[in-house]
């Protein structure tokens, strides 16, 4: 057991399309979360989830690395002072594009902070993700 979450997923799409989706504010805002984001080093970005009755949350951080096809930014959940690191890497493969995602740094959290972070984060965030999934389905149906 360690404190790194890693995900790998292959998308049947060209690498530049996937890169745009994860690095352009307009596209991030469509599939992920409302974003003020620029894929340039040292940019201070903000992700804002849609408010709802449980209250959503803000994630902010600094872009550490941004060049095709590597994107690294710090990830700081509102009301916590501890940063974790999110790393995206893309690679062209025969089927399209392989995305490698890494989220590390839970060991930077004090135990009690982790609980507070989790509790403030969980309810609102899940609602927002559910909202986003519904939105995407709606878009697909409308199209």
């Amino acid at each position, binding site marked *: 057991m360690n404190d790194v979450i890693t995900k790998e*997923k292959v998308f049947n799409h060209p690498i530049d399309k996937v890169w745009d989706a994860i690095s352009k504010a307009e596209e991030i805002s469509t599939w992920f979360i409302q974003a003020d984001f620029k894929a340039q080093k040292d940019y201070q970005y903000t992700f804002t989830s849609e408010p709802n009755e449980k209250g959503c949350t803000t994630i902010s951080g600094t872009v550490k690395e941004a060049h095709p096809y590597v994107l690294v930014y710090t990830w700081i959940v509102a009301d916590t002072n501890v940063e974790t690191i999110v790393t995206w890497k893309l690679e062209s493969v025969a089927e399209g594009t392989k995305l490698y995602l890494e989220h590390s740094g839970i060991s930077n959290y004090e135990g009690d902070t982790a609980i507070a972070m989790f509790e403030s984060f969980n309810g609102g965030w899940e609602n927002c993700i559910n909202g986003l999934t519904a939105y995407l389905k709606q878009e697909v149906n409308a199209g």
Partner: protein
Amino acid sequence: MQDRITQVFKAIADPTRREIFHALVIASSALSITQIASQFDMSRQGVTKHIKTLENAGLVVLDSQGRERFCNANAKPLKEVNKWMTFYEQFWDDSLENLGSYLDQKAT
């Protein structure tokens, strides 16, 4: 200074400590250092060292009675780590799922 969750990862990285912790979890009452030493065929010093690491992580609470020290398991720190991992595992699965749908939709 290492914070507690780092200590938890360090504590549970060692198989002997995991076994000692497990023995404490399933014990119906607190176990003394002497009892643990005989159960694991280890020296008291060896057990004391492992218990110290578990205690630093908050996984064991010590209770002194006379000259003997008794160990109680406390699983709460593990739950904190587990909650974080579980939450973000699901979060990223869902997000990448959304990314896939988005890319498919855009391509059509």
